């Protein structure tokens, strides 16, 4: 039983990391219907900037982390202003192609820094080891991931339900033309969505960096791992991103724990969630919490 509980808890914490990474992706999609293929690169920008500040400039890691949250938000904000704003009103496929291009440009720019190739380790900002209860062990970076996810979930829930800008974002997501006619600044909403996505990307970059070290390929890979999460949860649903992330995390762990031993080479943890994903999409094509769009002719 403790084995099962350990796998369950590990799945929840890993799922929280996926959820944290997926939040930014969903924010952008929710506001602007743009699938951001450069999301993994924002994660990498956040993580490497924190590393540079802490290691190369000797800034306290906690201060560096705070600076990075702001910095990545600014980078994301201006990315939207410079590259995406001119595309408002253009076919969505054009915008998606631009995000693919941005991924390539950001990747190239990171390679121009000393951090593009190599493995790096963030200075320890959490104690070694972790918390153990009832024989279940969770590391401090994993706990921080759960905490971050919970904080962001609550903050975004409040933001979208209570704040004027949040409500404007929802309105824009629902109908851009109607929102504009009511005086909502669509451009401002888009830019703010990107900035918020930058904050969550930086947060997930810090967590991933603390767990598995900094490596460009690994960090960008987390950006790709959010795809099954957001498809399962629903592309435009913030609670869906969290639930989707946790489900994927749990499925990965249970499959690895119970099925790998019977499959030569193992690796079921990477495959099994996708099988479940296919099954869910069979019945819920918009994901568990995604908005069902019905077009009436």
């Amino acid at each position, binding site marked *: 039983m403790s*084995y099962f509980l*350990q*796998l369950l808890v*590990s799945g929840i*914490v*890993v799922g929280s*990391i996926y959820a944290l990474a997926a939040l930014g992706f969903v924010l952008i999609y929710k506001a602007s219907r743009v699938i951001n293929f450069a999301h993994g690169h924002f994660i990498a920008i956040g993580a490497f900037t924190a590393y540079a500040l802490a290691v190369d400039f000797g800034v306290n890691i906690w201060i560096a982390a705070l600076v990075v949250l702001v910095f990545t938000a600014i980078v994301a904000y201006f990315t939207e202003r410079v590259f995406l704003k001119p595309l408002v009103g253009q076919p969505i496929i054009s915008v998606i192609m631009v995000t693919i291009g941005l991924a390539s440009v950001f990747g190239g720019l990171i*390679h121009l820094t000393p951090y*593009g*190739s*190599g*493995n*790096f*380790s963030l200075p*320890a900002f959490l104690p*070694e*080891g*972790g918390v*153990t209860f009832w024989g279940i*062990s969770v*590391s401090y970076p*994993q706990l921080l991931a759960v905490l971050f996810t919970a904080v962001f979930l609550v903050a975004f829930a409040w933001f979208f339900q209570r704040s004027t800008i949040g409500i404007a974002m929802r309105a824009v997501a629902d109908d851009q033309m109607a929102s504009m006619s009511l005086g909502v600044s669509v451009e401002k909403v888009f830019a703010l969505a990107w900035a918020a996505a930058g904050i969550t990307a930086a947060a997930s970059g810090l967590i*991933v960096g603390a*767990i*598995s*070290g900094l*490596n*460009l*390929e*690994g960090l960008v*890979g*987390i950006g790709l791992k959010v795809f099954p999460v957001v498809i399962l949860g629903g592309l435009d649903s913030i609670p869906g991103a969290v639930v989707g992330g946790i489900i994927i995390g749990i499925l*990965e*762990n*249970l499959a*690895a*724990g119970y099925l*790998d*031993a019977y499959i*030569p*080479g*193992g*690796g079921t*943890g*990477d495959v099994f969630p996708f099988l479940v994903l296919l099954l869910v999409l069979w019945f819920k094509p918009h994901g568990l919490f995604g908005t069902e769009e019905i077009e009436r002719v």
Partner: protein
Amino acid sequence: MKNKRTLWALAAVLAMGFAAAEKVHIMWSGAITGPTSDAGKYYAQGIEDYCNYINDTGYVAGVEFVCEVRDDQYNNANTLRNFEEAVDRGDPIFLGYSTGGTLQLKPLIQEVGLPFIPASYHIGNIDPPDNDYIFLPIPSYSEQVIAILEYIAKTTPGAKVAMVVHPSPFGRAPVEDAKKAAAELGITIVEVQEASKNLDNTATLKRFENKGVQYIVYQNVAGPVATMIKDAQRLGLNIKHAGAHYAGGPDLLRLAGPAAEGFLWVTSYYMPDEDNDGARFVKELGAKYGRPADTIESVHYPSGMLAAAVAIEAIKEAKDAGKKISPETVYEALLKIDWPNKLAVGPVTYSKDDHVGVDMLRVLEAKDGRFVPITEPFSSQLFRKVHYGK
């Protein structure tokens, strides 16, 4: 006036000397960016610096080496393009990188007869068919893993071992030979798990614990290994960890920190903090060409140097024998080479039946944040028995 004439004469002689120097191209195609570039970056720097050193010292009279490091981004199609360019230009030797790229190029390498030295130590590179022109600088992954198993069997008779390997031909390379060797050694490989970049390895590690695993042997790169050994430490597991060349090294120490203590690692290269000519040479070269500490400390830096050095030695042999430098003459020279290099723990020797340069390796252990050798250099007879039936 007389002095001026002398100067002009000297300049003319020098210019003639330079003009007479034969330019010999050596191309390396590997990952400076993209997957595995954490190793490829340093490997490329090793090639560049060794080449510059050779040119600066005039080691091969009448030859100026033009060493080109090309970033193929770990993409076989790019490797193929670079290789074809080298063939078309008439390069006498080619330095490769990845397992996938080398295995894919094997038939072409055989067809064009261009000697090829990869950074991949996959035994399949030098096994038939199409294996005449490929030369490994150090023992294969199979031999490295078997050497580790021999050490484990000696220290923990009857040990239960799990293997965690990269999900690729690179990772799977030593698995079959390791299983045969384990049977000979009386130890059990209870499971072989393929793993890439997991954020958490609790499920795998707890399963290993339930099966009574005492050692995990890795054939992987340092990043995923670091995550796994940190997870094992957090879970308080009484499991020891060991790995082949690319699994360990200073990168692992940097990523895993204290969790790397006790890690057993096999390689043929010296560590930068050792007191010997090889370690000193690497440090001096790194300092001479302005390399940062992380480059000088990386095991991939001398690895790149050795690959370039073997190529240059073979070219020198061909040149010294009065032959035209070509793929054919360099290949002939490689087959006869017996070079007491100082970059690795044994001499580089090849023959028609032996395409492994340095035959020796050592087991090292992570102690107090650095890898220290715990065996003398040795060669695994058991590997030859299980792989070649000798």
